[in-house]
């Protein structure tokens, strides 16, 4: 059974993505409207989903391909790369998940509304309505303060560094809220029973 990586950038434009994909041969797609994020309940990046001929073999989890942020996230890349390599070769996954809904909580009404405000804000920004964009970005962040695809993704679109003070503030609030995430958090991962 052949295998492929499909990478999807939750980003505003191809130009944001190009610096990261030099030399990459698998498909790289751009999800400007956050449609993938909405349909898979993805609330942060990187999020990986393993799909076996259309069936979700392993639902959303935080997987890092490098150790660049390991000190901050506490997630080492080695075991995850091994798991993905093993999956690519054999189709076997390292968790037994019978019901994906049990690990990937559905988006709440507020989170859904936040994503619609984000979509409106991004559109208004493109059409030059800065005030309308700012108003809708603010409402999106108010409704989903711990959703990185909303709050952090809005930072560069508002001229705010997504690696600066605003990011640290969000990270602290997210930490205090118990690191909410739609998927298997690193510390929740279980080893399959033999």
């Amino acid at each position, binding site marked *: 059974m*052949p295998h492929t990586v499909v990478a999807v950038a939750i980003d505003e434009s*191809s130009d944001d993505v190009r610096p990261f994909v030099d030399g990459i041969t698998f498909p790289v797609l751009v999800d400007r409207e956050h449609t993938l994020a909405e349909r898979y309940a993805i609330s942060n990046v*990187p999020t*990986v989903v393993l799909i076996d*001929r259309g069936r979700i*073999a392993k639902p959303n989890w935080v997987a890092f391909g490098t150790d660049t942020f390991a000190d901050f996230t506490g997630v080492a890349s080695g075991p995850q790369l091994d798991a993905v390599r093993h999956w690519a070769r054999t189709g076997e996954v390292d968790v037994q998940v019978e019901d*994906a809904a049990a690990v*990937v909580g559905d988006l709440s009404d507020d989170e859904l509304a936040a994503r619609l*405000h984000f979509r409106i804000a991004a*559109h208004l920004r493109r059409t030059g309505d800065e005030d309308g964009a700012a108003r809708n970005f603010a409402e999106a962040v108010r409704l989903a303060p711990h959703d990185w695809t909303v709050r952090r993704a809005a930072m560069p679109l508002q001229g705010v560094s997504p690696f600066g003070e605003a990011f640290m503030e969000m990270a602290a609030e997210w930490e205090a809220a118990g690191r909410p995430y739609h998927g298997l958090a690193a510390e929740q991962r279980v080893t399959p029973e033999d």
Partner: protein
Amino acid sequence: MRLTVLEPDLGAAEVDAEAVDGRLLADPAALPGAIGWTLKPEGLCRAEACVPLWDRDAVVAPDGRVDLLGAAAALDRPVLFDDASATLALGSARADRQQALTGRRAPDVELPDLDGTTHRLESFFDRRVTLVAFASW
């Protein structure tokens, strides 16, 4: 008023609509271009699929115009109207996400690559896929 309708698969469309009693009424002829569905006697239809309208009055006004908010609700899609900018945004059907969460069937999505060529995620489902969502931020 001139309304901008944002639909994740169709992009932005301009529609003439009138706000009446909390409804956004538009000519049914504008519906396919705005949200991808057509009003028919059997309900809201797209390709071979039809969603029956159990409460037709909640979607279609007496004068025959269709309420965009009611249509979105009938399709089980989250919807948000930003009055100040006259922009209406529709989300994906909740069923798309439920199929992933409770049915473990991977939802399809059509997205462009860096050159603008669109791909359906489903077109990769003849093999194993490691789907990686990432971002520049």
